[in-house]
């Protein structure tokens, strides 16, 4: 491994530059960090909320001037504490960590659920102008939780964006995976990228397997060290922080006993995914 990974592992403290509200439960935090501004789509960082916790977050966007953004959903104590923070308050950053999506330029399908849309939007920005076709399926519980729909519609032609909500408040009333079956029967794709709740990833994986389309999925597990040492994030033989978070269909086949089924608890025990 290159020294870069360890250079990236040094904790840098930096002020929050801006906080934007994306939905009732999601805020985007932007700060300056040189290392992470060089991140590739799919990589993650560890964000330290001083005195509270340190959490893994997918990188949403980077700017040439060194600005980096992450979208954070309020799900527990740590994210609640982060949501209460304002511009100029200090956070700590380690990373970027992990691998990234491989950039393909053929006919691309992206399927994102919840905040899982974030790394896909990052990827879409990089590849949109080079792809032959880009279809983006996004799903959320409600219209209000449907993230970055405007940005995605600006990137892809509007007809290529399929939005789904579980309550029908926007787009089609269904799970994000529902429109896929018909779409995959009718259209050809060279690559599927997906990120979101793992049950959704599993469904997307099954469909991609059925239609023999290569796939990459970004997984989430409990993270501690983020550098492949502590073993907290293991799935099968893989360390999600180091060998992932992006996994190919081949790798997911190897970990079928755990993918979409189980994760490791704080004490290392295998427990069912909720």
């Amino acid at each position, binding site marked *: 491994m290159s020294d870069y990974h360890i250079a990236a592992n040094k904790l840098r403290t930096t002020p929050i530059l801006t906080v934007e509200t994306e939905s009732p439960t999601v805020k985007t935090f932007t700060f300056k960090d040189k290392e992470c501004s060089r991140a590739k789509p799919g990589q993650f960082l560890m964000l330290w909320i001083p005195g509270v*916790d340190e959490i893994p977050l997918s990188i949403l966007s980077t700017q040439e001037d060194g600005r980096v953004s992450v979208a954070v959903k309020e799900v527990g104590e740590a994210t609640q504490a982060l949501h209460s923070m304002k511009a100029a308050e200090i956070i700590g950053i380690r990373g970027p960590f992990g691998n990234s999506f491989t950039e393909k330029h053929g006919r691309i399908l992206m399927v994102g659920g919840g905040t899982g849309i974030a790394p896909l939007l990052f990827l879409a920005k990089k590849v949109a102008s080079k792809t032959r076709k880009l279809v983006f399926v996004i799903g959320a519980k409600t219209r209000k939780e449907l993230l970055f729909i405007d940005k995605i519609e600006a990137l892809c032609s509007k007809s290529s964006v399929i939005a789904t909500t579980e309550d029908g408040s926007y787009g089609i009333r269904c799970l994000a995976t529902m429109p896929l079956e018909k779409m995959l029967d009718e259209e050809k794709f060279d690559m599927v990228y997906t990120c979101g709740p793992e049950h959704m990833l599993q469904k997307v994986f099954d469909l991609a397997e059925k239609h023999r389309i290569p796939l990459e999925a970004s997984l989430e597990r409990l993270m*501690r*060290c983020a550098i492949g*040492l502590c*073993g907290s994030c*293991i799935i099968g033989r893989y360390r999600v922080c180091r060998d992932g978070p992006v996994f190919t269909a081949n790798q997911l086949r190897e970990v079928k006993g755990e993918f979409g089924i189980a994760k490791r608890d*704080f004490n290392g025990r295998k427990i069912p995914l909720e």
Partner: protein
Amino acid sequence: MNRLGVNLAGLNLSNPTMLASGILGYSVETLESIVEGGAGAVVTKSIGLEPRDGYANPTVVQVSCGLINAIGLPNPGIEEFTSEIRAAKTALNVPLIVSVYGFSEEEYATVSKKAADAGADAVELNVSCPHVKETGSEIGQSLEILSKVVRKVKEVMEKPVFVKLSHNVTNLTDIAEVAAKSGADALTVINTVKAMAIDAETAMPILSNKRGGLSGPAIKPIAIRSVYDIYERVKTPIIGCGGIANWRDAVEFLLAGASAIQIGTAIALRGPNVFSAITRGMETYLKRKGVKSVKEIVGLSHRR
């Protein structure tokens, strides 16, 4: 003939490199990846009587020449872990050592016995963890308590018992001698060194536990001195541990008196293949020096 083969307290290792405790080591699959990487033996994460969640993040912080960690001994507890031990014994073709911690001598003994019964080839008593109260280094810094713990464990099991020592004591060689006299079959030297990191901007300790243990290149000279000192005092085999990242580091530990070495932090830099890289380098070194067996260089730097 295998130039690198060693016999460690009755265990046959195809080479003297071992996975240090605390690194990966929750599951058979990750231990397998370490063995495929070339390790001659593996030590699991420290296992206790009850499941333990460990500490909140941050649990690891990088400093100039290493990492400070206070993960807090997360583990599923020995009941849950026995199935992993059984599976590991079937899957792995190298000795499996289960690291054990406890809050009393009875706990150390109970967990060790269960681990051995499930198939562990040896146990390594963690009497040196620097960041959990009432276990680890609080056991290993008292001659009396350490002696009781080692004796109690030796009473209940026949398989080899390793004892992992802390450098954060005033009388390391006395402690090593007591561990040896109490029946330790090998001494792992050393665990992480008490350390801490504070962030200037926020004026806060970075680790959630505030205090932690330092590993990596920063502690290598400390560990070498510890091995060297203990080798002069006791006959019990020593397993060197602390900042080993390449074959030269490994050789230095052997020359100081270690019969085998453990690797942990370097896996973050070089991945599981760090083991085969180190063994290849050691083999080249032995050939170049005209040495037929790695055993011949153990303690070689002590000659006058």
